[in-house]
């Protein structure tokens, strides 16, 4: 097995990735401003609190992405012979687990308040000498938190797919959850103004269910990635087309009689084993294997450290190749 090229991604992907890092820095700055502003006008509204907690929470994927971006390109060392790519999977798990816990906590809290029939009220506030109903500045803060979230989320989704970065995807999802949350919170605040005591708590319950569902889906996906599930594209549970591409490529090689491919995600990369049964061509096998490994790397930038293992037979009685499950 050879030591792989230093560059992690092709130049155009590298550029896109650097843009994503910049975008995440802006996301973080914007979220901090929204959290601070919202903290100032928090009041008693349950939906407002829910929106605020979700904003705090939505810092996590952005932070996880930026922290992971520091480590993921570090070179492999003696203690970490596989490098640091998997920090991306770990970051994804951390962010999604926090999301889940928060969703559950929020649900319990707002459902409890609905149960004891808590009646929040919103009074007056003095702004530059004018007395205004506090609900209006609250709504202004919520709109401020919603509009950029829509824009940022829309920008990140296609990037996440091209970069095969699930943390970025989770963050784009989080931005979507953010603006949905804000809309529901506005409904809650207007509900209080309209004298509907339950509107606020119901809006908070809806928000918490959304967060919980999001968290569950992401935690499940993050766990599955760490359990070496087949690679899937961000946000979809469908197998990557790349698996079929690799299979086709290997089986098309002249010296390969039979082949079996087993791939898994390795952070934002894809790695695994290709078991082949070589034909007797007379060419030296080590060189053929080496060539195949190099070819695979040329096939897609995500394919890294895929190992090609020549065997006399794929599935003989000694079970030499681990049998991949039925697909």
């Amino acid at each position: 097995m050879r030591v792989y090229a230093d560059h992690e991604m092709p130049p155009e992907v590298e550029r896109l990735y650097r843009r994503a890092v910049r975008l995440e820095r802006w996301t973080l700055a914007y979220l901090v401003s929204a959290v601070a502003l919202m903290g100032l006008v928090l009041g008693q509204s349950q939906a407002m609190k829910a929106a605020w907690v979700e904003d705090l929470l939505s810092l996590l994927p952005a932070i996880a992405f930026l922290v992971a971006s520091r480590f993921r390109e570090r070179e492999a060392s003696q203690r970490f012979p596989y490098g640091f790519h998997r920090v991306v999977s770990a970051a994804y798990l951390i962010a999604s687990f926090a999301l889940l816990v928060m969703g559950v906590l929020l649900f319990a809290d707002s459902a409890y308040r609905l149960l004891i029939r808590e009646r929040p009220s919103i009074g007056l506030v003095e702004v530059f000498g004018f007395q205004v109903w506090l609900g209006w500045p609250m709504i202004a803060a919520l709109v401020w938190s919603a509009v950029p979230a829509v824009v940022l989320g829309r920008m990140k989704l296609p990037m996440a797919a091209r970069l095969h970065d699930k943390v970025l995807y989770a963050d784009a999802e989080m931005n979507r959850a953010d603006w949905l949350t804000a809309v529901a919170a506005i409904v809650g605040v207007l509900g209080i103004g309209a004298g509907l005591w339950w509107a606020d708590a119901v809006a908070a319950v809806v928000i918490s269910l959304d967060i919980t569902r999001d968290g569950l889906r992401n935690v499940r996906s993050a766990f599955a990635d760490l359990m070496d599930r087949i690679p899937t594209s961000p946000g979809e549970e469908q197998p990557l087309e790349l698996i079929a591409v690799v299979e086709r490529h290997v089986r098309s090689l002249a010296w390969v009689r039979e082949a079996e491919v087993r791939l898994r995600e390795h952070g934002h990369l894809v790695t695994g084993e290709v078991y082949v049964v070589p034909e007797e061509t007379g060419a030296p096998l080590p060189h053929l294997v080496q060539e195949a490994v190099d070819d695979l790397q040329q096939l897609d930038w995500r394919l890294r450290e895929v190992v090609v293992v020549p065997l006399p037979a794929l599935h003989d009685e000694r079970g030499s190749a681990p049998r991949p499950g039925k697909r």
Partner: protein
Amino acid sequence: MRSWLRVGAGALVVGVVTAGCQWPRDVDGTLERVRGGTLRVGVVEAEPWAAAAEGPRGVEVRLVEELAGRVGAEVSWVPGATAELVSGLHDGALDLVVGGLTAQDPWTAEVTFTRPYVTTRTVVAVPGGEPAPEDVAGRTVRLEADPQLEGLLRSAGAVPQVVPDAGGGTGPVAVEDWELDLHGLRGTGVELQSADHVWAVRSGESGWQVEVERFLLRLDPAHVQRLLDEEGA
């Protein structure tokens, strides 16, 4: 999820339309009931803010009467201890509780406090002719019986001396800032504590709360001071 939001938004539109021109609205329609009706006010004994004993009087009692005049309501006074009045307010048996409540009081889970309308400070002062000490450490400071204030003085390093009337006598004395002129005292710049005065309204009654807060926030500080002078004398 999206359809839930749509249902919520629809319900909201209905709510807003039925709300008509009044915004924000009460859950239980307190403001509508009070207008031209009866305003039920719980009074906590806390001079000079409120005293219920022989016909209610006090600064906040007089302010409530002004508010009642504005909304055309008759006031029905209910004297009692803070805890029972707060629970009455929570259950809707009262519309308002007054009597020296401050923003730091612990009742916010049951009821809603208005924004503070006046801040009073407990300060160390000296009689008009005496020189003001720079610092109270080691000094004897007189006060009227008040265990909390006594503790504050002790932690400031002063030697508290409880007297029946802080108005007379010589040497430093701990008093409320609004009493200074009344007793011919002069502040020393040492502040022991401050209190943001609030009233309590029933939670969920946003319309009523806004009406009360509008009244309180428009109060002239000089007017409050005048009432304190009259009621504190």
